[in-house]
């Protein structure tokens, strides 16, 4: 690990000011679960680490008057797992409780996973899958981006050098009736090779009104697949495979393509089969 200066601001404004003052070498650290691995390998060597740990309003979950769920960027997976959330928003707790391992879930944060923008991580897939909005604070002020615009490439986000992700906002409950998340990994502890999210909204008589399918893991950033709202699992799976363009014929790619097909078929069929707001 290369030497660095340790900084512990108490407010987001202070943190942003520190990032600005120390320029390119300064880096945010939340739980450190991804960053410290990279620092130990000397893949990165920040000159200044700006810790979010003392900024209390970056952790925690609140509900807006319209039902949108505001999740602080520094909320740990363990806290998300314990949260009691309504309707489909509960998927967030389930996804958070079924990744990495107990000790890592106590430190890793939702914001850290999104900012790391690793294609294998679950939270980027989930955030794009439910069309979450990400709130950002920077020296130039506040802004918000849909998750799919925030994630620019594998390991790259739309964040500027002096910007901090402050919250992940899940849309209000009526946005979706059903959200289904599935991933594939060889062992419980492994990151996903591929994952898929299906968010479904129905009209009054239960007729599908909107179907949002997101595929992740197999592509540098989560890919939203455009399908007809009435598409069944088999049709959606074909569209997904075409959309992610895993064209090469080597074994690894063929395997991923197969996984994408299966996962999308499953999430869509499961979504159509579920009644009520789940």
């Amino acid at each position, binding site marked *: 690990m290369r030497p660095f200066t340790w900084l512990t601001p108490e407010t987001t404004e202070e943190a942003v000011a520190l990032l600005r003052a120390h320029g390119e070498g300064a880096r945010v650290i939340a739980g*450190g679960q991804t960053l410290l691995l990279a620092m130990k390998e000397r893949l990165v060597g920040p000159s200044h680490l700006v810790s979010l740990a003392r900024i209390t309003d970056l952790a925690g979950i609140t509900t807006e008057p319209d039902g949108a769920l505001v999740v602080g960027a520094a909320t740990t997976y363990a806290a998300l797992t314990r949260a009691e959330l309504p309707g489909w928003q509960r998927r967030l707790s389930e996804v958070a409780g079924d990744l990495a391992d*107990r*000790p890592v879930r106590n430190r890793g944060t939702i914001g850290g996973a999104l900012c790391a923008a690793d294609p294998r991580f679950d939270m980027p897939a989930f955030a794009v899958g439910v069309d979450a909005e990400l709130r950002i604070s920077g020296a130039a002020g506040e802004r918000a981006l849909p998750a799919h615009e925030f994630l620019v490439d594998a390991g790259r986000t739309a964040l500027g050098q002096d910007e901090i992700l402050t919250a992940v906002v899940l849309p209000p409950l009526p946005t979706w009736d059903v959200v289904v998340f599935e991933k594939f990994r060889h062992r419980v502890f492994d990151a996903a090779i591929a994952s898929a999210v299906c968010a479904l909204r129905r009209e009054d008589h239960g007729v599908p009104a909107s179907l949002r399918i997101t595929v992740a893991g197999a592509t540098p950033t989560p890919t939203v697949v455009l399908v007809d709202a009435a598409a069944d699992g088999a049709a959606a799976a074909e569209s997904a495979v075409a959309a992610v363009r895993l064209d090469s014929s080597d074994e690894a790619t063929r395997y991923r393509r197969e996984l994408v097909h299966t996962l999308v078929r499953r999430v869509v069929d499961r979504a159509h089969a579920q009644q009520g707001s789940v």
Partner: protein
Amino acid sequence: MQKVCLTVNGREVSAEIDERTLLLEFVRDVAGLTGTHNGCLEARCGCCVVEVDGDVVKSCNVLAVQVDGAEITTIEGLAPQRLAPVDQITTQSLAGVYRPVEAVRGTPEDLHPVQAAFHRCHAVQCGFCTPGMVMVLKDYLEENPEPTRDDVRRAIAGNLCRCTGYQHIVDAAMEAAAEMRGERVPDRPTHGSTDGA
């Protein structure tokens, strides 16, 4: 350099340390407690698990400066009486340590129920993974007193054991859970597993 003050197993330990010091290094080299093991240094094996303010973490993937002011519990903290240093190994001190396996129970004077069950169920071979396994299982069983064998396997998903094949570790966890629920556990060591996995 940065001043860091931690309470390790109830004892205050403070030192001026390099910012890069991992919590694992603080526990082993500054606090001098070598029960917490370094198996991989990359958050893979779980040998380094300790509690920070009651939550388990992989101490090789946390900086000591990140947890300044926190209460740390290590494997040594689970059985306080064993902290008394043995200066000279005598027949008496050995007799004190090596009591018949049947007699070992989880009591405050003895061992934590998870430690006692590991002993009875032969869940330890080389012992390198044991501190981390015990710390994670203690934390897990406090939250879920009635786990299935499958739950236990998921709870230790981040802990690698190269020796036991995990069967006896799961046996021990199930027996520890029973003892922690206040049930009587068998007097005889329960070798042999009930699941085929």
